[in-house]
């Protein structure tokens, strides 16, 4: 009997407080939506990568790889003739562009493919004959063709490292639904060599080996070649973007955390408002567990509705995030095309579970609190407030302990990114617990100035915050968290951008740079015409040039980027070292005895100055001593630097990829730039000639581009926070309707009441903003020095930008102002007697 009354009372309450319910639903929906969107986008990226690797690697267990020059195709012949028992297939792999979209061109021998892949299994035999004989024949997945509006038989223009080449799609493979192998073009190995202009070499040899075949093959392989396990290599590649994806997930969890706070707030209010009702129910026979259950279930229903809506919004949002994630992965890690959202049931379930668990955790505390009190005392407000104040020292203590725990964890979790995030979350939670304890202090601090400025109304507003701490405490906590999150992320991105900007302007010492816009090889960037350096040196106004060759070489821990540089006299200034370097660094460096490694490389491989890095050279494995660790924000995969002369000799590769031009003092940039552009224009290849200012600008544009997704997440967190503040404030003020009515009845004019409410919400906003500044700053410190370092290996100074603090302050005040507006207008318009009668 009592139970059903409880249910009906609950339903009635939600109906009467519709606004509150809607905001709670919105809060959880937004939180879940952000987590889901990021999760789905991440999952789709990983899945696309996995499927692509599966189809491209097929049943390949091992691969034979060589240095940047690729492996001589004669080696494949030798292998087939001398080890006929092995299952092998030659592969040529390059990068081409169609309408500015990047594609992997996979050159295969259809006759060797059967044991590995089914890509060249074609429906009609004459297609296979054409594939084998037509020099520009391509196969494209049906899905990609549909996406690009292409059909079998179409002629397309491929951009191969800046050179246009005609090719023909002779057939499609796969079905229309499967996005697998989107972004891959398949050609016969001869056609691939011809299109890429890569004759006589292969990129790798694929093998399916049994355990006992591995060692003999390793012994047979000539020096300079590498037998690697495919699964390891795939895992290493997948790992490259792992830190980035973990970061996204963690930031999305922040949104959920804010959403969770929102639920906690709403649940708390909803319970507080009905304490008297629950007390009466208890008096007429409802048990504690009945009351607990009713509250919990009621909140869970709200949570469920919010979660469901959140899933829907999340899916919509994920479609937008997907291309941002893809673009970032393409910019920073590996080339992959992801156009299809992978709506895996597991991910949808995880989203639902997260939403419900957050709701459960957030509403359990208030529900428990509602049942804990003795029925006789529940309806006395003073009891509640006394209790909340009595809890303050405990909250303070627990809060401090949790924060300390977080810091300890951050300090003692080594290199673990996940533990780093755990520490961050601990720290945040601890701080939020601590906030209510600081509120009375702040309110007393504000009392006199506010009283001085606004008289009684000010006094009422300020004292009211402390007096109703059970409600204002959680609200201010939620606010603080929301504002701090935006401050923390803001400072982090800002510091990062500043560091990158400073690093770029220091690194780019030359006045003009020439390079090939993109490479057709995955192992090396496209070389510049051989005669170019000499021609440039003859240009009037050119003092000297630096040259560079970007390649990927094999190290013991997988592929690594190597920059071989021919330094100009002032290029040395471009390096800024972290910590000490070896003595006589530059002298030893130019003699070829030393290499330099970038900070991320040193961090990820746990290397220090004086250690050695073993690289696979054409003469076999060779150790290189690290002379110094330089700051480099160019790639989180790391970079090695060695003198070009030394590289050219070791790897028998004298080509160059970039030229830096240093001008004479009296030369004018524009004149030289025009002359160099003219020179570059003579090349069949499209070359990029840019002044250093332009490079700086473009690099920062790329930086901003890769951080777009972080900014989007920050905005999403802000959106959730905004709803949170709105709902918390509104709920609180609406809940105090009776109090306000009494104030009206005792003589406060509507205008005065409006002022009092607005002032109080503003004060709360201000308190939250003030409290958020240290938290946001500390979050940024953890993000920069723990999370960023562990994710990417980059260290950088943090920059406390006043504009971000101002922004946060403004945001907090506007949100609270808006939140106070509705209840105060409503109260101002209501007849006090009516409001009083509501009880």
């Amino acid at each position, binding site marked *: 009997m009592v139970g059903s009354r409880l249910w009906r009372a609950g339903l009635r309450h939600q109906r009467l407080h519709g606004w509150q319910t809607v905001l709670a639903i919105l809060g959880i929906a937004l939180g879940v939506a952000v987590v889901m969107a990021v999760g789905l986008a991440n999952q789709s990226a990983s899945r696309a990568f996995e499927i692509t690797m599966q189809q491209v690697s097929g049943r390949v267990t091992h691969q034979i790889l060589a240095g940047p020059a690729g492996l001589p*195709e*004669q080696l494949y*012949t030798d292998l087939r003739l001398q080890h006929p028992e092995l299952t092998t297939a030659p592969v040529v792999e390059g990068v081409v562009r169609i309408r500015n979209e990047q594609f992997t061109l996979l050159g295969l*021998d259809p006759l060797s493919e059967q044991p590995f892949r089914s890509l060249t299994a*074609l429906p009609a035999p004459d297609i296979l004959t054409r594939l084998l*004989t037509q020099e520009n024949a391509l196969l494209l997945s049906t899905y990609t063709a549909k996406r690009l509006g292409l059909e079998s038989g179409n002629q397309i223009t491929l951009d191969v490292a800046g050179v246009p080449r005609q090719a023909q799609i002779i057939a499609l493979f796969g079905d229309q639904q499967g996005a697998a192998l989107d972004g891959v073009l398949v050609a016969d190995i001869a056609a691939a060599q*011809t299109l890429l202009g890569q004759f006589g070499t292969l990129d790798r040899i694929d093998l399916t080996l049994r355990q006992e075949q591995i060692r003999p093959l390793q012994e047979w392989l000539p020096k300079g070649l590498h037998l690697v396990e495919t699964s390891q290599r795939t895992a290493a590649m997948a790992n490259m973007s792992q830190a980035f994806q973990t970061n996204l997930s963690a930031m999305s969890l922040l949104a959920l955390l804010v959403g969770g706070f929102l639920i906690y707030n709403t649940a708390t209010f909803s319970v507080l408002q009905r304490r008297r009702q629950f007390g009466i129910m208890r008096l007429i026979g409802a048990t504690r567990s009945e009351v607990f259950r009713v509250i919990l279930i009621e909140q869970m229903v709200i949570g469920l509705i919010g979660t469901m809506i959140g899933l829907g919004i999340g899916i919509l949002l994920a479609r937008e995030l997907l291309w941002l994630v893809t673009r970032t992965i393409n910019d920073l890690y590996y080339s992959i095309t992801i156009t299809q959202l992978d709506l895996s049931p597991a991910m949808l379930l995880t989203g639902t579970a997260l939403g419900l668990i957050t709701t459960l955790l957030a509403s359990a505390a208030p529900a428990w609190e509602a049942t804990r009190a003795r029925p006789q005392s529940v309806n006395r407000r003073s009891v509640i407030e006394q209790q909340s104040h009595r809890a303050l020292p405990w909250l303070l203590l627990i809060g401090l302990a949790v924060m300390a725990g977080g810091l300890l964890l951050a300090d003692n979790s080594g290199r673990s990114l996940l533990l780093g995030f755990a520490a961050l979350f601990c720290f945040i939670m601890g701080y939020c617990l601590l906030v209510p304890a600081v509120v009375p202090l702040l309110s007393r601090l504000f009392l006199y100035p506010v009283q001085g400025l606004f008289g009684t109304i000010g006094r009422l507003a300020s004292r009211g915050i402390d007096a109703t701490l059970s409600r204002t405490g959680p609200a201010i906590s939620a606010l603080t968290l929301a504002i701090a999150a935006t401050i923390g992320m803001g400072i982090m991105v800002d510091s990062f951008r500043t560091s990158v900007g400073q690093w770029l302007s220091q690194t780019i010492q030359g006045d003009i740079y020439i390079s090939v816009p993109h490479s057709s090889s995955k192992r090396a960037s496209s070389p510049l015409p051989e005669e170019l350096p000499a021609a440039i040196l003859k240009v009037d106004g050119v003092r000297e040039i630096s040259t560079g060759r970007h390649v990927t070489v094999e190290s013991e821990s997988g592929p690594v980027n190597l920059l071989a540089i021919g330094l100009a006299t002032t290029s040395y200034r471009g390096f800024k070292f972290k910590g000490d370097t070896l003595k006589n660094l530059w002298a030893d460096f130019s003699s070829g005895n030393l290499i330099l490694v970038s900070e991320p490389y040193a961090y990820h491989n746990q290397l220090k100055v004086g250690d050695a890095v073993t690289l696979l050279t054409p003469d076999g494995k060779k150790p290189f001593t690290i002379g110094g660790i330089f700051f480099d924000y160019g790639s989180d995969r790391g970079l090695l630097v060695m003198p070009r002369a030394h590289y050219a000799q070791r790897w028998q590769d004298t080509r160059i990829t970039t030229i830096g031009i240093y001008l004479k003092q009296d030369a004018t940039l524009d004149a030289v730039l025009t002359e160099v552009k003219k020179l570059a224009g003579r090349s069949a290849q499209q070359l990029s000639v840019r002044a250093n200012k332009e490079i700086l600008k473009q690099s920062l544009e790329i930086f901003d581009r890769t951080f777009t997704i972080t900014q989007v997440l920050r905005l999403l967190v802000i959106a959730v926070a905004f709803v949170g503040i709105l709902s918390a404030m509104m709920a609180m003020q609406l809940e105090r309707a009776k109090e306000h009515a009494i104030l009206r009845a005792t003589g406060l004019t509507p205008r005065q009441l409006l002022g009092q409410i607005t002032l109080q919400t503003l004060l709360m906003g201000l308190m939250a903003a003030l409290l958020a500044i240290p938290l946001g700053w500390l979050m940024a410190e953890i993000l920069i020095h723990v999370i960023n370092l562990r994710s990417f290996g980059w260290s950088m100074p943090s920059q406390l930008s006043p504009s971000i603090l101002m922004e946060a302050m403004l945001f907090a005040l506007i949100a609270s102002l808006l939140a106070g507006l509705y209840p105060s207008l409503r109260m101002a318009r209501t007849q006090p007697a009516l409001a009083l009668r509501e009880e």
Partner: protein
Amino acid sequence: MGRVILILLLPLLVGCQQNAETTTEKLSATRLLSSIDQQGFSRADKARAFIFPQDHAAHPEYRNEWWYFTGNLQDQSGQRFGYQVTFFRFALKPPGKKPARSRWSNNQLWMAHAAVTDPEGGRHFKQEKLTREGPGLAGSDARPFRVWVEDWQLQQSQQGFPWTIRINADQFSIELEVEPTIGLIRQGDKGLSQKSAAVGNASYYYSYPRLRSSGEITINEKRYQVTGNSWFDREWGTSALSSEQTGWDWFSLQFNSGENLMFYHLRNQQGEADPFSAGTRIDKDATTKRLTLSDIEVTPLTWWQSPSGKRYPVEWEMKLKQENRTLQIKSILAGQEMDLSVRYWEGAVDIYEQGRSIGSGFLEMTGY
């Protein structure tokens, strides 16, 4: 000899497709054959002088070509073996005027078939290799003469003969030195072998009908020192079977008396003998006599059904009309089907006359 013209294109179809095992798919190879343009290739349209060793090596200007060894061997204890080693070349496209820069784009496919028959053990082993010419994966050289498909190869010695055949398959290996005891025989009209009425539907064809062979055969690691006789057929051209011709039965017989006989029996859709069926009789002293359908009549006697469901006649009656002799030709083992990417029957046979063994040879049957 027109054999394997059909076979040659099949690997394109089947070698690259796992599921192309059904008859209909295999049959579509004939369509494929006709789909490949013969234009641009040279045709065997008139007799020509053979020049050696150049003509031992490949002729890429013709569409297809093969080097065909079959033979009967025995070890010291008298245990019998049959063997087949064949290298096929097939051009997807006529050679261009200037060579392509990619060594993979030479448009030549090579296939090798090898088989060993152990009639006592009732075993027949077979294996195939298929590859494109690519950067030396397969090919042929004239000086010294050499043909190879990966590690399987045929190679002349410094003096010319003996030639060495080296095959290393999964379950067996063949290593033989072969030396002709009868000199080179030009088949057909001075080496031009007409396969149907159309001009150019012919091939250049020569043989070593009897090669003294010795060496080693290994079956499942067990070695046998063997000696015996081999037959070598060499053929190239750009022709195809005419649309009426469905298959052939090809006999290469070596009589104990030292005489030899080759006869190909082309069949039409009704199963009747095609008028272009032909052959050659070769005496001990290498004198030859051309045979036509009016000289020889062959009739299947016993049929055998292979596990793949195909039925092949594994015992034949051969009437030599002019001499009024009747021979029985029996396979030494019924199960000698070459069920590879192309399915045909190729196996060692014994020759009987009036119940008496008078020689041995090889039989090839396609289109069943």
